[in-house]
């Protein structure tokens, strides 16, 4: 009797085997994504076409200004200089992240004594909250009392004005961020390395390949599916790394140490130009979206 009833309802209401069961399971996640990701994104895009500032924020009545916010972004020289600096910042950081991360991963992949302890020490930069790490590095960069200058002074007789000179403060931010980002790349690479079967290396050795040739022809291609998403993630995170810059430059007051995202923060919360900042955020979003799609497509094409 029970099975007859179920057969009748099978197409429309058998929850466990229905056509839409998977949707029901995804529902909670979909709802959260809609509320936390999609809604703010859509709201931000809407705000970017309006004039929202301190005077009218509370009233909720924001006049529509079309592309005015975007026009003021693209006609301002600062935008292009900051964009250029952000691209340089991202490129240098991600390159060093990958190079050092991969290098350390290759080292850790061998038989090493105390590998467990070394791995813990190398993970530490990732474990420390970014904010704390940035404040600590800021102390290390002080001209007179920072460790960096003390070491430089003993070795080379040099003392660099890391924090007072805007261009040097940019260098200080790069150093700090590289230190912060290496563990992530290292762990991803290590995971990827450990999934490469030993036989491939043995076969390559039999064919007479050197270590470097093995690395180039066996390791790198097989790491690509693991490194590609990591690089995309690393690029997006670095492009928007506001913590390190804001803390080490004590508020990104100087133009020579700004990146796009600190501009958004300042314009939004110190100058209350919410419409302009929303537009700038949309521009950043589109830039990163374009980069990610292009990068992933390029990787797929190579295969």
């Amino acid at each position, binding site marked *: 009797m*029970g*099975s007859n*009833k*179920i057969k009748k309802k099978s197409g429309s*209401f*058998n*929850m*466990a085997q229905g056509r839409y069961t998977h949707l*029901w399971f995804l*529902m*909670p996640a979909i*709802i*959260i994504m809609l*509320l936390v990701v999609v809604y703010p994104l859509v709201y931000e895009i809407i705000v970017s076409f309006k004039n929202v*500032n*301190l*005077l009218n*924020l*509370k*009233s*909720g009545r924001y006049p529509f200004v079309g592309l005015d916010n975007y026009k003021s972004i693209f006609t301002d020289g600062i935008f292009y200089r900051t964009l250029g600096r952000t691209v340089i910042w991202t490129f240098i950081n991600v390159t060093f992240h990958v190079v050092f991360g991969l290098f350390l991963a290759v080292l850790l992949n061998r038989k090493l004594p105390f590998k467990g302890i070394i791995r813990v020490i190398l993970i530490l930069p990732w474990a420390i909250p970014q904010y704390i790490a940035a404040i600590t590095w800021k*102390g290390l960069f*002080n*001209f*007179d*009392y920072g460790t960096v200058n003390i070491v430089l002074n003993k070795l080379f007789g040099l003392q660099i*004005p*890391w*924090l*007072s*000179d*805007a261009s040097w403060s940019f260098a200080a931010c790069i150093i700090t961020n590289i230190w912060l980002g290496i563990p992530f790349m290292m762990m991803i690479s290590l995971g990827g390395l450990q999934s490469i079967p030993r036989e491939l290396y043995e076969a390559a050795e039999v064919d007479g390949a050197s270590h470097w040739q093995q690395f180039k022809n066996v390791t790198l291609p097989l790491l690509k599916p693991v490194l590609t998403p990591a690089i995309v993630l690393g690029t997006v995170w670095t492009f928007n790394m506001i913590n390190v810059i804001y803390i080490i430059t*004590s*508020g990104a*007051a*100087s*133009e020579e140490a700004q990146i796009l995202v600190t501009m958004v923060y300042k*314009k939004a*919360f*110190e*100058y*209350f*130009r919410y419409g302009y900042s929303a537009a700038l955020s949309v521009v950043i979003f589109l830039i990163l979206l374009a980069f990610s799609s292009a990068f992933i497509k390029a990787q797929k094409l190579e295969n």
Partner: protein
Amino acid sequence: MKNIKKVISLACIAALTVGVLAGCGKTATDTKTTDTNKKVTIALWDQDDPGAQKVLDTMIADFTKANPNITVKRSHYETEDLRKNYTSASLGTTGPDIVLGPNDNLGVFVPGSLIQSLDDFFDAGFLDKFDKSALEAAKYEGKQYMLPDRNGNELLLMYNKKLVTEAPKTFEDLEKVGLQLKADKKVQYGLVFNEVEPFFSIPFLGAFDGKVFDDLTAKSPKATLNTDAVKSWLTFLKKIHDEGLIPKEADGTIADTLFKEGKAAFIINGPWGFADYQKAKIDLGIVAIPSINGKNPAPYSAVKGYTVTANLSADKKDAVKKFLTFINSKENQLKMVDAHQQLPTLTEAINDSKISSNPLIAAQQDPLSKATPMPIITQMRAIWDAIKPVQQQLFAGKVNPDAAAADMQKKAEDGIKALGLN
């Protein structure tokens, strides 16, 4: 069996969905009744030092004992966070009812329609009990937007009596003593102060008769940063930096640490630093920043006080009034003095013997008389943002004072335009 499975799986999905949506609900406060015995919760946001926060908490406990139906929830925020969170909170319903902060917040809160005027908020005669100049500083566009609880915030010169036996009478004396101590290797630096925030270098501008705005009472005050006064001020700053009187690089923490460890003879800081230095067992001397070329520097003075949110619900109004009256009684203002070491604002409290017998506060009379009220208009943000990076470049030797002044002026004008004002 399959039916039960169906029912169970349906129930689980329903529970999951409800669980997700439950977290998104708002806790609405019931604003319909005006029953004075109903439980009311008022939210207080403060931007104050740890010592003052502790005193606030004890006073809140006392208040709650006397008024068991009123709960006061206190949250602490730093300067920038307070402004950011308050403006964002104005869009919803979970903002504070009372904010304790400095009077330059008014330049943000009033244009943002976040707070209400207190001219008619309290019972008649309440505001007359307060010091007139303190009340003046807490006004914005002629209306009383803030109830001040302390008057001061002025920068002064503190010296380590172990290193410096006599207070310097002029800045030139200070320079000589400071450089000599450094040459004798008794200190690392003669004078230290926060070289990052322009708030600490602006006092010297007054000694050159400089001002940052042309006319604060005008409808659109103009920035005056490209003047001879400013150029002289920047030349002075560059001189004391290059000659080694002040460190090459120093933020507030470095300055404090050097002074507390006895590695600096003089420090320019405010009364908020007293407690810290005394804890470090520094024998403290306090004077106004000495004159430069016979002219007195003019640090900015400010008041700190309480503002009330604009859309305060009716049942909370009584609770807020009770709380603010309680916390600004003579005993409580004097209790707060222990924490902030500045002048209270209730006239009765100012005349109390506790104030006149406290050497640290008595020593502030002179510096406070030489201070000038800090501009609190919205445009002031543009001034700070213009001076900060250029001052950094000046110290780094990348720009000379003349070019720096012109750069500051341009940045200030751009900043004022960016604020949407002119």
